[in-house]
């Protein structure tokens, strides 16, 4: 392990605190504060991975995570970006996508096969003859993909989520971001500041060059950070990457937990009134041959290795740069002991005179108008060739590091994913954000500023603009801040060079997908002439780095190669998440919840087997016998209780309540009598049945009605929607959760009920289809209806949810002598099917109308003037015989019931089975089916085609319905 500096003010490591980890099966040590990548670097690792396609060796390049170069498997989790992930004791680190090791990859030979793999080569190969494709495909799948994940992988850790709000959200905790946060906070606003690194300070934080009055940039960063941290109304989220920005300033990010935090990672979704984006810049990759050979790294990476992590990148470094940061890096690293034979600066002029002097004072050779054209060395950089930009003169230098950077690229992601436009700017050579979304501002280095004071001033101005949006800042103050900016240096001039003078066979514009300049040329020649198409065809920017490396180089090169007179071409679309984010982190905690009825606990104790039904969980069975024989027989012969609390229950009252009901229900509800129950249905505009239920009249302009379980959630919206132009006066209350329902059914139901109520429940006192309100034990108010869904004597008792258990227990106690039993949803399903009572969605489908399902009797043709939803369609459909109709059928020769969903066929499909069962009550197989109109005649023979029947049909006959108790005596007894 190399010795680490421990005296620099900028260091973030503690060299005294060693941290063990396992790499390729052996134990190594890093130090506290190391990222995984820096710990490996300190242990001499230079090749972290192999590239996707060509298996080229890859090393530390930017340290910002915009490429897959240092992605490794950590603790079984694939594709961890080791350069931005901090080392923890005991981490197990493995290489990915290599045969052998990253150092010696047996697949490295593929790099020489690039001639056989031009852009989009797979579209032109492997399909002739057709036989080879399946074989080739398997190989492609094996070769593609980077990390490995076990199908049993269990993700350890705690994943949390928070949804804070604030007045101003600042994305980026560099100088501009901090100044913006302070400016808004000083106006009394609540500010949230998000910073991707674990500390504030941004790209000045690790720079020891002079800021002002012999204060260094680093010292200034520390000073600002302290100021931010002590400002109470700034909430700072460090180690928090912004991943999305959306309409109306919804901002998402994820935070990585510290040791002291209760979470591993947490998802943050916040709503801000205004947003300042101060995300700064990354460096623009310099394009030359082998520009991603391990040992080639950007200036910021080399500088941070030394200043933040306490080690030199190597012994001897050639610099090929196009920005002042390059000169500063050279001077700083020279002082720490790095030998620098030459700096090739793309720029002929325009360098910061102070930095130029610093370099010359240190006797470092600087060649202006020169650029690296090739890195030599098969696995790591050993030599570098530099040439004059016009390629007339060349020199070669031995070295183990090449610091290479073409300049800067602004990080405009948070702006453009929220619909800012990008426009090419000739001065900075940036695509700058224009037409910013409302209440969103850009500040700092991403606008092209390099001068620290300008960066701070632009942050301050943006913070005030955001405050102005919150009405906490005056125009005059804004004007002053703008004026202050004008006295400071403007954006720096950007270098124009896109590629070094090379042919580009091994000049990689996209590292992740191994796309070279040559591949881009091939794509353009094939007609893929805009970056978005080139991306799709060549893969550039489609990899884990999501275009971070191709960035602005791709559109700039595309324009240049086509010799376009002006650069109207845009970079490819940036998409969330701006930083790849774990599915575990996005998921946070699970939000899907089910509603439980008041009887839930008791029914589970009674052995109920529950199923999700819509938004509810309901007891479907009460034994493992899924035919429900016992439950069914007990209802038919004795008495059972069903928890019907999931039914939709509503009260509608007010002068226009009846009008509203008449609009949505097909029956004429003006005829409804107090004390009676009216069964009716709702249709949609196509006449298709969407709901059925009962309506009772509670009093003048006051109704209570029920809907099916599945429809309850949409009912209010439905009624509001269909009455929206009427200005009607009615109130609609959803009582679904407030009321529970007990369905007491069976020939002994009356005997049970008698025991708990004071009123007359004889057939004369409380007849079929009647409605009564009464109180049980002077306490429990009951709305009771006599219905017959299951075809037996039946009471539906609606009681406040809080009394459900009490009443249930009372009935249960009263029913003991009759052996009262639970019955579940499936038993009810069979019971009602025997009676041919329909369940919508089971006996109907999307296209089934009221008439098709045999419920035309509900439709009051005389009811006019209410514009009842669906009636126009019903009138039209009435003449149409060519529709599917609901029929009942029995099986031939005492055969078994067909499966639900079986088809009815001749040489084509004529219908399908809705519900069919071997009926215990009838001792034969019966069912209901939707069949073509001409087959609905009684006596029609139906041929059933079931799945896996191999063409062996079974047969049944259309019969009269209902099957059970056709006169309906039992439910009326």
């Amino acid at each position, binding site marked *: 392990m190399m010795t680490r500096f421990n005296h620099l003010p900028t260091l973030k490591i503690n060299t005294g605190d060693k941290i063990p980890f396992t790499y390729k099966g052996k134990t190594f040590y890093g130090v506290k504060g190391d990222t995984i990548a820096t710990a490996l670097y300190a242990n001499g690792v230079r090749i972290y991975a192999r590239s996707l396609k060509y298996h080229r060796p890859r090393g530390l390049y930017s340290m910002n995570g915009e490429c897959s170069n240092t992605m490794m498997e950590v603790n079984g989790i*694939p594709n961890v970006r080791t350069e931005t992930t901090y080392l923890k004791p005991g981490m197990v680190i493995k290489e990915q996508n290599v045969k052998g090791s990253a150092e010696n990859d047996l697949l490295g030979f593929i790099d020489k096969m690039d001639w056989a793999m031009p852009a989009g080569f797979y579209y032109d190969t492997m399909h002739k003859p057709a036989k080879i494709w399946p074989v080739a495909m398997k190989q492609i799948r094996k070769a593609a993909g980077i*990390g490995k994940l076990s199908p049993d992988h269990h993700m350890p850790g705690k994943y949390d989520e928070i949804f804070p709000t604030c007045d101003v959200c600042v994305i980026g905790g560099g100088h501009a971001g901090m100044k913006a946060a302070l400016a808004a906070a000083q106006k009394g606003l609540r500010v949230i500041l998000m910073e991707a690194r674990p500390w504030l300070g941004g790209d000045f934080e690790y720079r020891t060059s002079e800021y002002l009055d012999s204060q260094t940039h680093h010292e200034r960063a520390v000073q600002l950070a302290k100021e931010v941290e002590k400002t109470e109304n700034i909430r700072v989220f460090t180690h928090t990457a912004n991943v999305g920005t959306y309409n109306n300033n919804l901002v998402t990010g994820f935070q990585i937990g510290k040791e002291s935090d209760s979470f591993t990672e947490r998802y943050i979704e916040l709503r801000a009134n205004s947003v300042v984006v101060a995300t700064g810049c990354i460096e623009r990759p310099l394009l030359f041959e082998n520009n991603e050979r391990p040992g080639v790294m950007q200036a910021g990476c080399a500088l941070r290795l030394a200043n933040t992590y306490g080690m030199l990148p190597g012994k001897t470094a050639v610099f090929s740069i196009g920005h002042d940061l390059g000169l500063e890096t050279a001077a700083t690293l020279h002082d720490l002991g790095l030998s620098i034979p030459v700096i090739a600066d793309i720029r002929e002029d325009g360098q910061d005179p102070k930095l130029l002097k610093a370099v010359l004072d240190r006797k470092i050779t600087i060649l202006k108008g020169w650029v690296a054209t090739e890195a030599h060395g098969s696995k790591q950089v050993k030599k570098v060739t530099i040439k004059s930009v016009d390629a007339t003169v060349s020199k070669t230098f031995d070295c183990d590091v090449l610091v290479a950077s073409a300049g800067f690229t602004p990080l405009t992601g948070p702006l453009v994913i929220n619909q800012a436009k990008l426009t090419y700017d000739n001065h900075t050579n940036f695509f700058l954000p224009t037409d910013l979304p409302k209440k969103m501002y850009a500040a700092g280095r991403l606008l092209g500023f390099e001068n620290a004071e300008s960066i701070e001033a632009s942050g301050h101005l943006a913070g005030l603009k955001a405050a102005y949006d919150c009405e906490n800042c005056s125009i005059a103050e804004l004007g002053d801040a703008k004026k202050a900016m004008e006295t400071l240096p403007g954006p720096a001039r950007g270098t124009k060079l896109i590629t070094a003078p090379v042919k580009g066979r091994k000049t990689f514009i996209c590292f992740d997908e191994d796309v070279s300049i040559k591949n881009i040329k091939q794509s353009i020649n094939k007609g893929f002439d805009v970056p978005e198409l080139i991306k799709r065809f060549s893969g550039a920017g489609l990899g884990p780095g999501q275009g971070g490396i191709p960035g602005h180089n791709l559109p700039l090169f595309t324009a240049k190669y086509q010799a376009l007179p002006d650069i109207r071409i845009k970079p490819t679309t940036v998409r969330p998440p701006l930083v790849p984010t774990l599915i575990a982190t996005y998921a946070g905690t699970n939000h899907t919840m089910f509603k439980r009825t008041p009887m839930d606990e008791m029914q589970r104790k009674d052995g109920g087997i529950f199923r*999700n039904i819509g938004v509810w969980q309901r007891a479907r069975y009460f034994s493992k016998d899924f035919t429900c024989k016992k439950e069914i027989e007990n209802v038919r012969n004795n008495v059972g209780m069903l928890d019907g609390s999931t039914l939709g229950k509503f009260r509608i009252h007010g002068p226009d309540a009846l009008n509203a009901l008449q609009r949505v229900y097909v029956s004429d509800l003006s005829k409804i009598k107090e004390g009676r129950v009216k069964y009716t249905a709702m249709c949609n505009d196509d006449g298709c049945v969407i709901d059925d239920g009962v309506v009772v009249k509670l009093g003048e302009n006051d109704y209570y009605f029920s809907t099916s379980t599945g429809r309850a959630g949409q009912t209010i919206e439905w009624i509001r929607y269909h009455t929206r132009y009427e200005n009607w006066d009615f109130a609609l209350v959803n009582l679904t959760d407030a009321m529970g329902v007990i369905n007491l059914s069976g020939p002994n139901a009356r005997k049970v009920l008698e025991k708990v109520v004071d009123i007359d429940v004889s057939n004369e006192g409380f007849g079929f289809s009647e409605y009564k309100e009464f109180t049980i034990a002077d306490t429990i108010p009951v709305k009771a209806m006599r219905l017959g869904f299951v075809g037996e004597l039946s009471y539906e008792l609606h009681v406040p949810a809080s009394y459900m258990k009490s009443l249930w227990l009372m009935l249960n106690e009263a029913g003991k002598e009759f052996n009262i039993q639970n019955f579940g949803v499936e038993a009810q399903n069979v019971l009602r099917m025997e009676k041919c009572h329909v369940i919508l969605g089971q006996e109907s489908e999307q296209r089934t109308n009221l008439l098709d399902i045999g419920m035309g009797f509900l439709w009051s043709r005389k009811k006019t003037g209410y514009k009842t939803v669906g009636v126009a369609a019903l009138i039209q459909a009435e003449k149409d015989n060519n529709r599917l109709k609901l029929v009942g059928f029995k099986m031939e020769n005492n055969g078994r019931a067909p499966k639900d*969903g079986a088809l009815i066929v001749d040489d084509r499909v004529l219908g399908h089975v809705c519900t069919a069962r071997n009926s215990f009550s009838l001792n034969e197989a019966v069912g209901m089916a939707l069949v073509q109109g001409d087959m609905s005649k009684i006596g029609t023979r139906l041929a059933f085609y079931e799945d896996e029947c191999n063409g062996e049909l079974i047969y049944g006959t259309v019969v009269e319905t209902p099957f059970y108790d056709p006169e309906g005596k039992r439910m009326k007894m």
Partner: protein
Amino acid sequence: MFSKSKPMWGKKNKLKSSYDVVLIGGGLHSLATAYYLAKEHGITDVAIIEKNYIGYGGAGRNTAIVRANQRTQYNVPLYKEALDLWPVLTRELDYNLMFNNCGNLNLMHSEAAMNAARMNVATAQFHGVESHLIDAKQAKELVPALNISDDITFPIHGAMYHPPGGVVRHDAVVWGLAKGAAKMGVEIHQHTEATGIQTKNGKVTAVVTDKGVINTKQVLLSAGGYSAALIHGFLGIKLPISVLTIQAMVTQPLKPLLDHVVSSGAYHCYANQTLKGEIATGAHMDPWPNYTTLTTAHYIKHQAEALSEFLPALRGVRFMRIWGGLADMTPDMAPIMDGNEQVEGFFMDCGWGYFGFKSCSAVGRHMADFMATNTCPDILKPFALKRYKEHKLMGETAALMSYSPDN
């Protein structure tokens, strides 16, 4: 082995003042129609008019899943034909469409759902399409990453397994069809916007574009999510189409983990692994109609929550990008294909929702037949617009659609 570096879909031609046929929209249905017009009917004086670049819309935004296990007898044969055409087109176009017939598993989370799926399975088998109902254990054997325990929100009861389905490389289909059509003389005019259709005496006479007027007697409008608005704007024909944003996303690439397309209606989520190794996932639509392709914070989080439950291994994978596209939804989830009905010479092919990709090859072929012969092929007849006026929906879904209040 490699075609030379020349533009794949022909040189950039100058727009002529007349063509036999004009196709509006540079998506898959247009390209396929053009291809078959040229190939099977010898009609090559054809111009495709595309406002952006070919494959800009749904063609390049879908997640490339193909299958033929639809619900009704009107749909299954059409999708079966489309499914059978992928290998044929690969050969004809001499372009690898990368058909991966890995099979689809549609997860079922209740007995009721299993019963509902049984009808799809029976319909498929009746039409000679392989499809089976399997139980949860069998599903787990096929997809080892599946969580079949009971302690998730929607426990898995089984699945509808459709072996011949899978994934086709969508971009390859766009470029392959463009290449094939251009080779036979079809002209593809990108960055050309259609702004109107001229008619005279109830007949199409011309298409107006921002690059000039094109005289033609036949025009097909098949512009994906933009079709309904264009058809209304150009000809005043109102279609019962709601346009909704649908989003999809991919994770970072992994070595083979999922060998099938896995989807779940209850979780509103599907997932499959692309040949590149990314897990592609998506499913439900945003609940409000709009014409943007913007993504939402809610959606990606929902997908993560869903995947966390039924494919929990994926919790260790990172989402890499999310994008949006438009789904043009009809009330019965079935498309509108019609011609010579509202205006002579005007054909439309739209309302595909999220089924446009799977169907494109077969539909292009039949639409070409329709346009060439001016006779609607039987297989397309049930998809005519008039079905809505007659209140006769197609029944492609069992449940009612509730993507808008006026369903």
